[in-house]
């Protein structure tokens, strides 16, 4: 029906050219809008950070990175990110596998629940953590009796960061598992491979692209997290201060130069992770084409 319509309308050549020109103009405007959007929202702030960080001159870099609280903040961020990535990777693969390969009552509910951390405000997550592990919380006495500090210490910071980052790996691995199906795994078993051998030799190599992608996203999220960590950390300088929290404090204390340098470094790490994701993606499409 639409074809017949086009043929009738297409009889009028001038009208057709006018329409095409209009379409081209519209397309150009849309592209311009996208570029403008990216420039205003992404590139301008990034450029601003670079400019602000380096305005006092290059020596500000040396000054910042020799400060013990800055070094500690980066170390803490790295530790939290590493633990988070390790846990979300292992947990993510297991949950994705269960959601894809197992059929059980409540599967759809569990599947929906995975996205909860995306929907919740990180501050809420932090508050919930304080409620559970803080003074008067359900689990406070259990850990306090054993001399383990959760709130205002590394454990709670890791806990909230893991909670917030966990959906990435699951959501990246799930569709890949879905797509590869069970036939290769079945084949491996008939060839005598144990469950573990099947996982390591067949399943894991097949999901590795999605897994890497999930790892990169979790890492980026863990490094940039501030809201939840802010609530549970207690802001103890030199002890529970991550890189993002350092920026927050430095701004308060009007040490803008070092705040911008740390921000620039974090931005640099994010760009590197983004580049890594792009590289993985490219490689993935190339392999699909082959």
């Amino acid at each position: 029906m639409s074809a017949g319509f086009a043929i009738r309308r297409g009889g009028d050549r001038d009208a057709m050219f006018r329409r095409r020109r209009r379409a081209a103009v519209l397309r150009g405007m849309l592209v311009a809008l996208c570029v403008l959007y990216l420039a205003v929202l992404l590139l301008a702030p990034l450029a601003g950070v670079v400019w602000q960080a380096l305005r006092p001159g290059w020596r500000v870099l040396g000054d910042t990175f020799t400060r013990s609280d800055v070094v500690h903040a980066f170390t803490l961020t790295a530790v939290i990110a590493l633990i988070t990535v390790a846990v979300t990777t292992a947990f993510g693969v297991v949950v994705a596998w269960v959601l894809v390969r197992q059929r059980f009552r409540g599967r759809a509910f569990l599947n929906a629940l995975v996205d909860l951390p995306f929907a919740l405000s990180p501050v809420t997550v932090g508050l919930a953590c304080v409620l559970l592990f803080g003074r008067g919380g359900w689990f406070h006495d259990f850990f306090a009796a054993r001399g383990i500090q959760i709130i205002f210490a590394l454990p709670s910071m890791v806990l909230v960061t893991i909670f917030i980052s966990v959906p990435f790996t699951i959501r990246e691995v799930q569709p890949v598992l879905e797509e590869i199906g069970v036939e290769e795994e079945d084949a491996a078993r008939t060839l005598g491979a144990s469950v573990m051998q099947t996982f390591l030799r067949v399943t894991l190599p097949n999901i590795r692209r999605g897994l890497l992608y999930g790892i990169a996203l979790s890492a980026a999220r863990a490094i940039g997290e501030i809201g939840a960590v802010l609530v549970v950390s207690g802001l103890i300088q030199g002890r529970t201060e991550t890189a993002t929290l350092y920026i927050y404090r430095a701004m308060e204390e009007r040490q803008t130069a070092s705040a911008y340098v740390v921000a620039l470094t974090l931005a640099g790490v994010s760009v590197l992770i983004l580049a890594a994701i792009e590289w993985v993606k490219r490689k993935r499409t190339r392999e699909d084409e082959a």
Partner: protein
Amino acid sequence: MSELIRVENLTKRFGDFEAVRDVTFTAEAGSITALLGPSGSGKSTVLRMIAGLETPTRGRIWLGQEEQTHTSVQERRVGFVFQHYALFRHLTVWQNVMFGLAVRRMSKRERRARVEELLELVQLGPFRDRYPDQLSGGQRQRVALARALAPRPNVLLLDEPFGALDARVRQDLRRWLDNLHRELGVTSLLVTHDQDEALELANRLVVMREGRIEQVGTPNEIYNEPATPFVAGFVGSANVLHGHVIDGHMEFGEHRVPIANDLADGIDARAFVRPHDVRVRAGGSGGGSGTARATVERIVTLGWLSRVVLRLGDGQAIVAELPSDELCDVGLGDVVAVDVRRALAFRASDVGRLAEFASVES
């Protein structure tokens, strides 16, 4: 050495749905047995239970002398070939064939020799470093076969192995598999919905429908002495004609054809007539008691073979297949003599809606 496969009262339920019901048969050692049936007849489920990929709800499975109903997939030592190859996409041809040997701890030299031997057997030596997505469908299935055979399985299970291939490749591969089987003599169970494939490859056929066995027999028995109207319609094509049984004969239109089965007089019946059992002669005269007159409605020439659609005196259509050169003096609209050589009769109530499925005319 190759082993027999035996299943007894095998039943599989998925929730409320009974996919396989009381299936019992034996596949003799060294033979090819085909499980033949339309999709959804439960044949693949039977195969997967024998492999240990599904757990039976009831029933028992033997591979050789040992009962294997409750053993794991890995212990059963079956070779399994999947319809969609299921090759490991991240491994080369060589690594794919090696897989079953690598997980079984053999000496390195032994493994290599075995992989060489199998690649030789499936004629894929030059392709050893290719990945599955760099191979054609036929080549992939040969790799899958080599991979399944490498660990020297007790039995070979093939699940619609040629289902995803072009008609031409399918024929070549079928012949090739036939030769391979003669050479190796490994007990094989072939699941297929393709009757030609089953008739050509198998020594014995197990025809299944809706989870049950309809008939077990040699290709000859299944084709010439089908036990049920379903088998008669599913294996080979057949005309289904309405008529009555009178005095050990099937009567339809002016035809009166002797039947083998024992049906009571006067009962409403359906005659199954193979198209090649219908003779056509120009000129509407002559012939015996089985002869009647019919009008030629359509002629389709398929090379040496021609298919003729005829309208009988009582209004029923019947399709005949005969060599094209026997048809030279028959044209559209002619009245010809039709002679039915053989018919199988089934009670009309047993045939039911299957008649539509079985009929060649459509």
